[in-house]
């Protein structure tokens, strides 16, 4: 029973996260301005990272941990670079 | 075979890799050291290739040396396979590499960064592609040689190189993706990547999976044909080769042969006569594509005033000839084609080097003038004739040497006597007309065979026309040109390549025997497959 509940809750949580990704994607696609897309991408990264953690729970293994870890540590780099490009027109001065 | 000899196969890959790595780490001003290292490496490669060829040839009918990397069994590890074909191509590669390096010593080595390292990696890629017995590893080595070729094509930078390079890289990146698609499809249905293993599994493959395998092979073939510059996939070739620096272009004359090599190897290994339903897969297309490529190359050769483009056109003709010859699917033709491959690769390499020497000292206006001169009916010769009728002009030693070299290249490429091009062409045509051997059986010549015969003869004529025109314009007509300053180290590689062509003519017997033996074992891959797959760890 608990297994059932847990499984369903997990599935529900994953669906919510997937929907959250969808929302973020909408912002990426719609814009209207570049900064909106960047924020959208950043959110997409975070949502994806959380989805990865739930994948780990679902499969009961920890091999997905590293992927989540790397997104958490470095996922911001590309968005930061994008933001810097918006600000300065170049990423490295 | 024991001791160090057993490791000879890895040398053409490992040595340039290691020396290249050291060159990368060395400072730029150590170019003399780098040149010396490069030279040593190529000489060692040359020696190794010669030794491998001797070993392979001495081994009799089914001589194959299998080098199991990492000591893993052939079926799932990566193996190198040295047979006559790979040894031959290693040898040609080393020769061209030596020529390119020598030529670059004069000044090209310092026209951009890391020339020597790139050259080593280029040779490593070529050697690896010729040696590997694994499909995916072939992809990797294709990428190595392509990456290095991108570097060499762009060596020296400049508008023309970069513009051509963009096209070249785009096409080859797309082709590489096709390569991946093809390889993975083959893996998907056959479950293996080893070429010999693949050939062994092919007969047992379920009929329902066969179309997928053939589709994979077809896509793979398209990727190879881009590299071989088959029409209409090879429009990138002429601008790229024409823009590349001479040493790079000389090496590139081998690069287009890699595509042909891959086609040759795989077609015969996977779709040879005893593969049942798949036998002869794609031969007709190869033949047709090859012939059209010859025609296209001939037209390009005819239509250009520009020496580098002319040489590029010769590459196209050479590629087309080889593809069509592979498509003919006959041992005798393949043997001739291998002879042709060797001689044309060397001659084109020499030509690319020569072109720059010829262009040196020409004033820029000459080319513009030549276009109008081409309508050669204009009678400005009258007054010239009045002037100094009947007194010859001595040709400076340098020009004489250049002219002789140019003539030799032209003869080889047009397939005219007395050089190796003629023998090559004869061997192929004789094979087309008499597949079973001269006077043995009333073999029917296919329409494709006739088309190839006509295309070969006509392309030879076109090459002759274009080369004569170019030679006369560059060596005879341009009277007040300055005699180019040519270093010994620049003419030496040209002479080296031409001497090899001459040697192939004189020793046509033994050389041809090698080629025929190579072709025979390529066409009967069973021994090959048995030797690779049959031996357990």
């Amino acid at each position, binding site marked *: 029973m608990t297994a059932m509940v847990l499984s369903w809750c997990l599935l529900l949580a994953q669906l919510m996260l997937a929907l959250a*990704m969808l929302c973020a994607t909408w912002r990426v696609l719609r814009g209207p301005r570049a900064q909106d897309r960047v924020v959208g991408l950043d959110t997409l990264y975070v949502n994806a990272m959380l989805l990865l953690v739930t994948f780990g729970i679902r499969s009961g293994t920890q091999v997905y941990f590293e992927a989540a870890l790397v997104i958490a540590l470095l996922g911001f780099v590309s968005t930061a670079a994008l933001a810097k490009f918006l600000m300065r027109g170049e990423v490295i001065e | 075979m024991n001791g160090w000899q057993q490791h000879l196969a890895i040398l053409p890959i490992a040595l340039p890799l290691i020396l290249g790595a050291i060159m990368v780490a060395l400072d730029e001003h150590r170019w003399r050291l780098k040149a010396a290292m490069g030279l040593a490496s190529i000489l060692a490669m040359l020696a190794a290739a010669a030794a491998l060829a001797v070993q392979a040839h001495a081994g009799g009918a089914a001589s194959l040396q299998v080098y199991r990397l990492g*000591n893993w*069994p052939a079926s799932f590890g990566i193996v190198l396979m040295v047979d006559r074909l790979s040894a031959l191509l290693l040898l040609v590669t080393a020769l061209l590499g030596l020529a390119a390096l020598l030529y670059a010593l004069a000044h090209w080595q310092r026209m951009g960064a890391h020339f020597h390292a790139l050259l080593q990696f280029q040779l490593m890629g070529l050697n690896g592609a010729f040696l590997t017995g694994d499909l995916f590893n072939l992809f990797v080595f294709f990428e190595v040689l392509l990456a290095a070729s991108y570097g060499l094509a762009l060596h020296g930078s400049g508008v023309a190189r970069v513009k051509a390079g963009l096209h070249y890289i785009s096409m080859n990146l797309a082709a590489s993706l096709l390569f991946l698609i093809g390889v993975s499809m083959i893996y998907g249905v056959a479950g293996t990547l080893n070429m010999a293993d693949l050939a062994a599994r092919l007969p047992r493959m379920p009929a329902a999976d066969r179309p997928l395998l053939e589709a994979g092979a077809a896509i793979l073939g398209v990727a190879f044909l881009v590299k071989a510059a088959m029409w209409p996939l090879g429009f990138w070739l002429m601008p790229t080769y024409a823009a590349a620096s001479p040493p790079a272009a000389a090496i590139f004359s081998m690069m287009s042969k890699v595509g042909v090599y891959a086609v040759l190897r795989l077609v015969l290994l996977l779709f040879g006569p005893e593969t049942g339903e798949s036998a002869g897969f794609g031969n007709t297309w190869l033949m047709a594509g090859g012939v059209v490529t010859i025609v296209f190359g001939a*037209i390009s050769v005819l239509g250009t005033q520009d020496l580098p483009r002319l040489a590029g056109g010769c590459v196209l003709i050479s590629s087309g000839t080889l593809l069509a010859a592979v498509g003919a699917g006959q041992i005798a033709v393949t043997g001739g084609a291998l002879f042709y491959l060797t001689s044309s690769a060397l001659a084109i390499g020499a030509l690319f080097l020569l072109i720059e020497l010829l262009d040196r000292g020409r004033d820029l206006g000459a080319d513009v003038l030549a276009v109008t001169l081409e309508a050669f009916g204009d009678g400005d010769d009258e007054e010239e004739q009045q002037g100094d009728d009947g007194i010859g002009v001595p040709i400076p030693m340098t020009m004489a040497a250049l002219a002789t070299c140019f003539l030799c290249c032209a003869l080889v490429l047009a397939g005219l006597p007395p050089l190796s091009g003629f023998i090559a062409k004869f061997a192929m045509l004789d094979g087309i007309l008499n597949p079973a051997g001269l006077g043995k059986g009333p073999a029917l010549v296919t329409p494709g065979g006739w088309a190839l015969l006509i295309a070969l003869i006509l392309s030879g004529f076109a090459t002759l026309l274009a080369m004569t025109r170019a030679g006369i314009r560059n060596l005879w007509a341009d009277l007040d040109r300055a005699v180019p300053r040519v270093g010994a180290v620049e003419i030496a590689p040209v002479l080296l390549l031409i001497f090899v062509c001459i040697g192939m003519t004189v020793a046509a017997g033994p050389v041809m025997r090698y080629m025929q033996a190579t072709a025979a074992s390529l066409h009967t891959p069973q021994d090959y497959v048995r030797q690779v797959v049959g031996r357990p760890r």
Partner: protein
Amino acid sequence: MQDAFYLLAAVLLPYAGALITALLPANARTVAWLAGGTALLTLLMVVLGYSDIAAGRIPRVALPWAPELGLSFTLRMDGFAATFAVMASGIGFLVVLYSRYYMSPDDPIPRFFSFLLAFMGSMMGLVLSANLIQLVFFWELTSLFSFLLIGYWQNLAAARDGARMALTVTAGGGLALFAGVLVLGHIVGSYELDAVLAAGNLVRAHPLYLPALVLILLGAMTKSAQFPFHFWLPHAMAAPTPVSAYLHSATLVKAGIFLLARLWPVLAGTDAWFWILCPVGLITLLVGAYVAIFQHDMKALLAYSTISHLGLITLLLSLNSDLAMVAAVFHIINHATFKASLFMAAGIIDHETGTRDIRRLSGLNQSMPFTARLALVAAGAMAGVPLLNGFISKEMFFTEALTAATTPTLLHSILPIAATLASILAVTYSLRFIHGAFFGPETDDLPKKPHEPPQFMRVPVEILVFACMVVGILPSATVGPLLDLAARSILGDATPEYSLAVWHGFNLPLVMSLIALAGGVALYRLLYRHLNAGIDGTPLLERLDGRRAFDQVMVFISWRFARALERLMATDRLQMQLRLLVCIAFLAATLALLPHGLAPGGVQLTPVDPVVALMWVVGGACAIAAAYQAKYHRLAALVMLGGAGLVTCLTFVWFSAPDLALTQLLVEIVTTVLMLLGLRWMPKRIESAGSGHILARLRRLRDLAIAAAAGLGLTAISYATMTRVSPDGISRQFLERAYTEGGGTNVVNVILVDFRGFDTMGEITVLGIVALTVFALLRRFRPAAESVGMPEQQQGEARDWLLIPAVTMRLIFPVIIAVSLYLLLRGHDQPGGGFIAGLMLAIGILLQYMAGGTRWVEDHLRVLPLRWMGFGLLLAAGTGAAAIAFGKPFLTSYFAYADLGPLGKLPLASAVIFDLGVFALVFGATVLMLIALAHQSVRRPRAAPPPPVAALPEPAAAAAGEN
């Protein structure tokens, strides 16, 4: 053995002489003696062989060359070959002698003699070849060396053009001959001359007879200047006169005739033979003779006369009559002697007077009487005056023409009239040659004061003219045996009875001769005024200009035709090339699949996971939107590409490939940053409302269809494969052996660094090479003028905006180092490894560059990426090579656990060292690329290059990359 010696010597001596001569200094005069000696020795060799032939033996020698191809170097000298060999070497010797005096001291003479001797060798090889392929071999060599000889005065445009024309026509014909010989060999089953000659009936009955015949005749006709290929010969007169004397009397042009006669037993005797050759010969005979009359240049006159005589011989050969064959051989010999001497005489005149123009020359009989006598006799032979050799063979020709006329076709029946007409014309031009130059009043209006040439310059002419007379008076005693041997070696037992006598009684041929002589004199008188009026061109045939036609054809072929076809067949536009590539790949796969179709396999499908499906809604939307936005909204496209990449990465995770996911993610980050770094140098784009053109829309629609087809194709193939039962492939091995034999639990990593470590080595090499290339290319980077200035985003004032973020970005760096090393060290057993760690560390460095700027970072932290790369590659390759030291194949791995007491067991795997190399290289290469790009911004304040000419003005831009 003896055979071998003199046959080989006959061919190789001239080449040896040529080689030695070529190496002599440019103005060595002694070279003539060397050349003359060589020629004489060659002649001696032929004569040595002649005794054997006379004894009824055919000397031969065979050296193995390429036996696999049925190709041996075989020489064979029968009577016919000997005849030609005598002519080639004998006249060759005389020409050398003559040249010694003819050529100017300022001419670079060794080159001349070298080419001449090489040509002689080729001619000897040609006539002595016992193998058809070998014959073609020497055939093309004669073309080649004649090209060099004709173009000897390469400073003259006429010489260049003449040489080129000769080579084009003769070598082109040679290629046809090559094809023809190949077909002939295919028919017979051998290229050996003996075998071919014995297979006449087989050949003539074969369906491929006609193609072979046409191809071979093409070769012969081009070489022997038969109509319509005759035009190259007069232009070859731009060569020094000795060359003309040699090439156009006895050798080059006779090669075609030689071939016709040589293959006569095999190819002749059919209607096709007659109907091709006879009209050609006839037209050549008549047109050549007619045009010759109107030439003002003595050499040109001789050239056209040569054409005419070649036509005559061809005509004789075409008649399918044995007697005509004998006549042809006889005329070959006669023509060689008188024509060579005439050319030499013309050369003497040219040499001593400075001109060859008959209109200017006059009365040379006074100043150079000896020469005049010699020329007179030779011209008489050419005209067919009795008691000279030309007369006898011409009589035989008339006889044959009359015999042929008994066959009731129009062509046959006009032959006697045509023969007489041709003879009339021959008399006319011979008369013009002699009368125009030697008779009439003496003139002062010459470039040089004429006088007799040096004694020895005349000797060759004297010898030849003497031969003309001796043969003309005593034919059977002199040339009889040679002719007999020659004819017999062609006709064999079928050799007919013939009589070589001056007087055959008063018969029809004699009448024809007399008519010709009288008619010729009359015609010359009739045309006298016209000829002396100095009008250029040939009456009635003004339009017939072979050279112009040739030029036009050449221009057409190499310009209009080739270029038009090239335009049609090729494109230099990348879009089209890529389109073609995609379409061809699609078609290739489709064609392969079509015969059997592509049905999905029978594997039980996996139920759809809504989460993944939703994920792919995201991925698909991002991909499509990126495709849509990439033109005008680069930044947006980049962001969307990031979205698609992220979903791909999630998919890898979902499908149990953590290593892939990690790598994909990191690569994605680096790529995004790289592209952003590059974006700074790209031109601004603003969306234009245009491009709504209907054609443009159609093109886009077509591309859309192609893209959709390609996408669907990929879908179909992957679906079909995924639904099939997996083959029992090699992957089982990896799973089973990864730990036990590879020493790692992360199977993917063990594959990467051990099982297929060789792939990895290649792959890191690729990365290294690319980094080097990027580095080299960027060093010469020249930004576009408009990108040189500061980006407009920096126009506005902004302070301290990076102050706070930079603190965090710096703080993160050690964290990144730690995590990167963590992933590196556990890679063999858990997800991670060299690639991932290397990329990660590179991103760490990148972050510092972003936070602090290039200068600041490089003041604080020095990374030497090239060293890292070299070290990494060396470590990886060295690990591989180290195995060799232990007698194991390259890349054989080794692993053990070192017991470090309380610190636990340390895994010692060579694969880990290999992975360390990978790490170093990936790190170095990535950093090198990033830094090289970043440095462009630092280099910015430099002089703006002038805008390149080719640049089109880009649409002016207002906004930044986006909106």
